[in-house]
């Protein structure tokens, strides 16, 4: 165990604590604990949404039955919920049938869109990386050849023969 605090001598305070524990015949805290400085891992939005929507697409399927009450009261609540579902499932299915179809279409549409967005994002990332490479990498080696002007061709040194006039016949 470590103590952190700049307004007291934390080590001295911890030594007093250890002394007292020792006097009481108790084990001291460990020496190797430490603060966990990591933040929580992010959740990828598209993947999570597709997964969560898939989980809940069938609205006729109930969530797990639970209660925050304990004892007899809790058991009574669970029993009441189970009974309601058993008795009413037929009607629940009937009432929510269209919702289930709608949810299916929404899920399909969303997953296609999200897949497309992810593909495009990854393509944009590739293109950006290529652009970055092209603009920041050292110049590519070039052949040491004289440059050739793409001008009009030079006139031949020999005098061109005049076209002969056609003979009169």
């Amino acid at each position, binding site marked *: *165990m*470590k*103590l*952190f*605090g*700049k*307004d*007291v001598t*934390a080590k001295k*305070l*911890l030594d*007093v*604590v*250890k002394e*007292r*524990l020792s006097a*009481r015949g*108790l084990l*001291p*805290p*460990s020496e190797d*604990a*430490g*603060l*966990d400085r990591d*933040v*929580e*891992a*992010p*959740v*990828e*939005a*598209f993947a*999570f*949404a597709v997964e*969560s929507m898939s989980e809940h697409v069938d609205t006729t399927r109930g*969530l797990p039955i*639970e*209660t*925050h*009450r*304990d*004892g007899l*009261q*809790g058991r009574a609540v669970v029993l009441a919920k189970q009974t309601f579902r058993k008795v009413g499932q037929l009607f629940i299915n009937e009432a929510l049938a269209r919702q289930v179809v709608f949810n299916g279409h929404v899920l399909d549409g969303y997953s296609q869109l999200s897949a497309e967005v992810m593909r495009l994002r990854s393509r944009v990332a590739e293109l950006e990386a290529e652009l970055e490479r092209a603009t920041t990498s050292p110049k590519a080696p070039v052949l040491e050849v004289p440059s050739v002007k793409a001008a009009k061709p030079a006139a031949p040194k020999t005098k061109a023969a005049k076209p002969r006039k056609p003979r009169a016949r």
Partner: protein
Amino acid sequence: MGAAAVGFQRALRHVGITGEVFAGEVEPGFDAIVHHASKLRVDRDDLVLYHHGIASSLVAKLLHLPCRRGLVFHNITPARFYAGTRLAEPLVTGRAQLTAMAGHLDVSIGVSRYNARELEAAGHRDVKVVPLLVEPERFTVAQADGSMLTRLKKLDTPRIVSVSRVVPHKRVEDLLSLHQELRRITPRAQLVIVGGYDAGQAAFKALARRAKQVGNVTFLGRVTHGQLVAAYRSADCFVSMSEHEGVGVPLLEAFASEVPVIAFGAAAVPETMGGRGLVFDEKHFAALAELTVQVSTDAAVRAGLVEGQTERLKDFSLEAVASALEKALPPRRRPTPKKRDTRRVAFVVQRFGEFIVGGAEAHARQVALKLAPHADVEVFTTCATDHLSWKNELEPGTTRDGPLTVHRFPASRFRNIRGFNRLSDSMFGKPHDLVGETRWVADQGPTVPALLERLVAERERFDAVAFFTYLYQPTVYGVPLLADRALVVPTTHDEPPLAFHLFADAFEKPRALLCNTPEEETLIRERFPNAAPSTIVGVGIDALHPDERRFRQQTGIHGPYLLYVGRMEAGKGVAELLAFHQQLVKKFHDAPTLVLAGSGELQARGSRVVALGRVDEQTKWDALGGALAVVVPSRYESLSLLTLEAFAVGTPVIGNTIGAVVRGQLERSSAGVGYDDERSFIAAVKEVGERRKDLSRHARRYAAKHQWQTVIDAWLTAIDGIKETKR
């Protein structure tokens, strides 16, 4: 998060930015300070700052708003603490939404560096940190609920206090384990847990059973602000066992309550503590119990910890929050000030017009008219004629009132005076948090957001902006918005709302306070020691020539009479005056008639009582000139204009001396007699009858000192002072 949003709103005012708070759910009674999110309408240049925690449908709305968008992240409890419960999914969804928002925002803000790191991990770029507002003034002993403090102080020591909702990640079971170990060392030790719980919940029942076994544990549940302060202030030590905090506001509240803090260093806790208090990294309960005893009993250790903790609070002050917000938000375009030779002044007053007789509003008009030859004066006011409801009865827009330009803005909310009085009765004399006080000020009104937005937009047109009366919303919200050029004429009374800390914005932030009397100045300094520099300015009196005969002919009043001019309201002491006068009439056959001039809710009835209703200016002066004495029955005055007007025509005053201001005016003038009960009222009437000539001479001499020229010179000095040294 609601409290944080209100805190940010206040901090934004301190950097000159106006704004409103919207929420997905609005608790009943809070509609004065929070609007439902469905009412949100934006312009392209607006910035919407969305406060995010658990999953919310507001994210979808935010991402499609056609304006600039920002996020304030308050963190989300990791779902692992709620695995297998229905809460787990909205917690994960909240994190998924956090990722989804990345790349679609103009600004991302974490309320701690820890939260900012989570934002960065979720793909947000250029993340800023803005701390939450913690005001130590709200956690002083004076703010503690007396009966709760006495109750808790009766408990044995050491008293350990922890503040958190009773939910899994706060680890109340670990507090109980610590307490069990603590009781092995000091059997009389007490554990007090403050925070909401569901008494019917299985998890809480299990905790309660264990607490009973351990002994000396008190669950206080949800408490008022005063009770919360009492709990902190009763503690020998504050302990947190929480395993996840995005900030940990109770730690800072304990700092503000001068209690040493020991906390498990989870998530943002070490950062929040900033090296102050004590942070531990292992839940070794026997060791922690020894540590708690040491911290609770060793005076030197306590003092060292408390001193450091107090120092740390500076990082959460209003100034720190406002400064961090200003740096975090996208830069604003500010018009460049134009140099002018003439002075230009804006007056902000809750009602304005010739129709208002007496009070701060009439005072404002008088000053504006007198100032007009020396400066361009523009008045910013409401469309209300009725100060109880603030109903829009006048046309909005710009008109002229003689040399003055008057801009009227409609109130966006009206006051239900009965409901407001009930709210006031429930709040006065008790401590409150910022949200409670903001609610009172918002309910008080008048709510005219367009007025403040216009003033902020046109701020550079004015050398000074003068706010009249500290008590109303335009002053409390407007002064911090325009602090660099704000003057306040507070017209302070010794009245219950003066105890609200939110009014510090009106008293501490302007460039100067223009007071009416030395008593008012003293009252302000006592209540707000850091108040802005103040000057006693007062008012001048323009007396019309009084004609007593004309008044008697008009009204048919014969014989001596006492006169009251003003609003016919119980709050002005009129009911008490009527009761005392009836006793006078019973005891003396030649008791003077009581003449009342003014309108209001109170019906004046009784023997030798004449109620004239509202009278014109000349009739008022005629009545003043002929009265045996003028009666000033109000206890709450920052300056009694009626007293000065009576003195100007040589009429003595019988004044209620329970209020310091009237008492001071009578003492300084020697031109009146005071009363504070029925007996002294009767004695005062007799004395005035005997010494009227003498009192009248003193009255004229005192009134001669109150000249408009002196008043206007003081105003011009204040305005030029701002003009020369703009902060």
